């Protein structure tokens, strides 16, 4: 092995309009055999251009087959019997009568006698039958008996929740912290307030579930998942634990109708469909219904947050004290994150406590802990800035320590028209009040090679000039296939139209789960490496054919050759022969050298119109700027940002789980009563993709799924504060809360 060569690259980004560039030279040491890194000076032909989603027509025309669409002759349908109680024990379970019902192929218990029941919707048993009507009839015949225990589904009154005043303020005294207290005492302006968010349930359009069939001991399963390889291993282990002698497990998830963090585990529904198919000896489909989706597949936890802080005479934050209490269902995962880049020099303290209740536990949801924490922190910052007499943008420019975001604040403010928007005065007594707000975003993911065997990609070049790029990892709808096609096209110098990208079959090379914004940064450079290796092989074939030294042959611009001896791509591929070039690329580790920036920065601006008669808030326009390292698939990246903003509008104004305290049951577990932003609610949305060469691997992509979802609700909350002059500190910002805030202002 020879020592990898040093390569000098340019990292950073060219100047945003009206600002200076941030470009730096850096020397990195790529792994042996890897492609030379792309950097800020690379002239791309496909990357960063507008390329349509490669599977868009398949999806729009209904030809894309999701798990929900999979069907086999003789396949049974299945459902799960759910517990109607929030807390207790299963003391009796009689399945025989259900098993004898007409059309029933299998009935399995999912909970042992004596086991705890932890929430309404806990899985008790599953039934497979010819039709869902047969299954419903059989489920009616299952006799389940429970020992009931007292339950609580309200985290605000959990045993260890903080005491709240009549106005919703946390009343508990703060713990002693001498340095912090001293900093607060010395501050010119101090402020303290309590914030609250509600539970947002997972609402993927394709519900959780799968289709399973066994061939002897071998299991083949189609699963709506965001972790093909993780779920394959999980199901093998779970089936073995149930006494099944499992051979191979093959998992398919070529198209997935959303995940957002709720589909990492195969779930009890995934295990149930495998057990039913094994017992029935025919394929079985089990997809959750919408109520099950709202009540059993996780959520973004609600939380209480209390903050106090102080600023000095220059408007700099000198003290920051933050505590949060998160609803954690019956487990313990109600965490809240808050921005740390405003408070680098402050005396500070953060603390969090989970509050357990008898409800479905949270699961990761697009930037776990962040939208709720940022809502509280950014609104708190605006209140603090107002008290200190400083414009919210200027307050952030004084305190934000991220150089990239400082540029984004300035660029975004100019693009949004911040100064004019903030200067606009509402007429006294006007029914409609407008306001503008802003908020920041942060995430940190540059991907990696993976544990053990690095993430892999197959690239095949066929004799007819077509190219395949394949990953066994899933595309949960974000445009992974398009990204793979674009990177391959760029490396090979051919149009995207020649390339077929395939994802979601565990027969292809392994890749990571889609979560934490890891997938693209973790596989993009493996995609490139596979194409790079396949290109080298093609170049060798062409060099031999035209009789030119290998070092003189190049593959670019749809041609392969040297000087005047150039073959068109299609002609070069004819030399390959019947067996395709078939190379496997791998994700090399990130360079040991420090990247330009290890996190991703973003900023969003929102304008709202508030109806003071009804309390209704309308978001009228939003602008977001977001960095995701090198922008590979521009249209799909923009789609990610705009989609996150739409989800954020929904979180800010509409979504909340409403629980019946007496029964422990969710009262609005459907799309009729669980309000989600619709087309008519949407503002004019614009975004700017801020492409940055971080220089951490041969491609330089960074995560994008989570970061743009962090700022939206916070920016809207601040815009409402600006419009009506009083903060609404409780999400979602529904009309009743706006009217109450307006009344408090008058009163």
């Amino acid at each position: 092995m020879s020592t990898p060569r040093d390569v000098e690259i340019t990292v950073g980004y060219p100047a945003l309009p009206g600002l200076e560039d941030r470009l730096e030279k850096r020397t990195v040491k790529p792994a042996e055999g890897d492609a030379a890194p792309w950097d800020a000076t690379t002239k791309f032909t496909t990357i960063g251009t507008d390329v349509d989603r490669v599977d868009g027509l398949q999806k729009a025309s209904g030809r894309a087959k999701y798990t929900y669409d999979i069907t086999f002759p003789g396949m049974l349908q299945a459902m799960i019997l759910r517990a109607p109680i929030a807390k207790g024990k299963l003391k009796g379970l009689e399945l025989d009568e259900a098993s004898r019902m007409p059309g029933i192929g299998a009935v399995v218990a999912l909970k042992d006698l004596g086991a705890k029941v932890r929430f309404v919707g806990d899985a008790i048993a599953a039934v497979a039958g010819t039709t869902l009507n047969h299954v419903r009839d059989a489920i009616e015949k299952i006799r389940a008996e429970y020992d009931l225990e007292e339950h609580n589904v309200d985290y605000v009154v959990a045993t260890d929740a903080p005491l709240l005043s009549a106005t919703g303020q946390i009343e508990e005294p703060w713990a002693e912290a001498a340095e912090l207290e001293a900093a607060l005492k010395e501050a010119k302006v101090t402020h303290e307030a309590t914030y609250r968010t509600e539970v947002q349930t997972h609402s993927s359009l394709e519900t959780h579930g799968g289709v399973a069939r066994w061939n002897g001991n071998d299991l083949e399963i189609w699963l709506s998942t965001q972790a093909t390889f993780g779920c394959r291993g999980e199901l093998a282990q779970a089936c073995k634990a149930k006494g099944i002698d499992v051979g191979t497990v093959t998992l398919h998830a070529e198209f997935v109708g959303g995940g957002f963090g709720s589909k990492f585990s195969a779930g009890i529904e995934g295990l149930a469909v495998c057990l039913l198919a094994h017992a029935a000896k025919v394929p079985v489909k089990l997809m959750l219904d919408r109520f099950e989706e709202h009540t059993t597949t996780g959520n973004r936890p609600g939380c209480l947050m209390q903050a106090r802080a102080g600023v000095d005479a220059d408007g700099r934050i000198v003290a920051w004290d933050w505590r949060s209490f998160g609803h954690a269902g019956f487990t313990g995962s109600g965490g809240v994150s808050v921005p740390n880049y405003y408070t680098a020099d402050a005396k500070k303290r953060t603390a969090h406590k989970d509050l357990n209740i008898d409800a479905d536990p949270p699961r990761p949801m697009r930037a776990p802990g962040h939208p709720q924490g940022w809502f509280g922190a950014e609104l708190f910052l605006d209140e603090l800035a107002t008290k200190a007499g400083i414009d919210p943008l200027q307050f952030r420019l004084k305190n934000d320590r991220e150089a990239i975001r400082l540029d984004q604040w300035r660029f975004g403010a100019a693009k949004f028209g911040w100064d004019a928007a903030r200067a606009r005065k509402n007429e006294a007594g006007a029914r409609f009040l407008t306001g503008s707000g802003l908020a920041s975003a942060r995430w940190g993911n540059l991907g990696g090679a993976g544990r053990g065997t690095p993430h892999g990609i197959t690239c095949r070049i066929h004799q007819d000039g077509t190219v395949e790029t394949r990953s066994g990892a899933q595309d949960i709808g974000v445009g992974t296939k398009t990204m793979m096609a674009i990177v391959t096209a760029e490396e090979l110098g051919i149009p995207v139209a020649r390339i077929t990208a395939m994802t979601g079959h565990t027969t292809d090379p392994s890749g990571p789960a889609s979560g934490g914004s890891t997938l693209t940064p973790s596989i993009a450079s493996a995609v490139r490496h596979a194409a790079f290796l396949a290109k080298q092989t093609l170049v060798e074939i062409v060099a031999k054919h035209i009789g030119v030294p290998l070092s003189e042959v190049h593959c670019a611009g749809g041609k392969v050759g040297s000087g005047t001896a150039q073959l068109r791509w299609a002609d070069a591929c004819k030399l390959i022969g019947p067996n395709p070039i078939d190379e496997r690329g791998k994700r090399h580790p990130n360079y040991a050298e420090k990247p330009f920036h290890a996190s991703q920065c973003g900023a969003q601006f929102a304008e709202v119109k508030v109806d003071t008669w009804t309390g209704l808030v309308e978001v009228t326009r939003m602008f977001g700027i977001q960095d995701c390292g090198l922008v590979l698939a521009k249209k799909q990246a923009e789609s990610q940002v705009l989609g996150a903003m739409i989800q954020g509008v929904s979180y800010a104004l509409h979504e909340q789980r409403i629980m019946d305290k007496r029964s422990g049951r969710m009262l609005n577990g459907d799309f009729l009563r669980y309000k989600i932003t619709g087309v008519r609610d949407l503002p004019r949305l614009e975004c700017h993709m801020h492409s940055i060469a971080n220089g951490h691997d041969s491609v330089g992509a960074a995560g994008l799924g989570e970061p743009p979802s962090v700022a939206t609700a916070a920016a809207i909350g601040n815009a409402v504060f600006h419009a009506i002059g009083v903060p609404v500190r409780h999400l979602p910002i529904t009309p009743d809360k706006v009217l109450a805030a307006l009344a408090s202002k008058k009163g």
Partner: protein
Amino acid sequence: MSNQNEKITTHQDLVPRDLCPSMLMKHLLTHSMSERVFDDRQWPGDGYYWCARTCTCVGPDDEVVHPKDCRPGRRCYQGPQA
């Protein structure tokens, strides 16, 4: 006081060395254990843990799955013995 002398902590740093291999979490599946932790959390990941043998947040022993609990001494523990 936290964060005064900021030390970089990763999710891997928060994993007990004797954790049961059946305990799963997002960061294991996304291969992101070396990712930096930005806050004061005591346990790795997002707090959502489940068992590969039950596909739920409850282990084979009917108790909640958590890295503080899925360790030697628990009835269903399947990791390497020390």
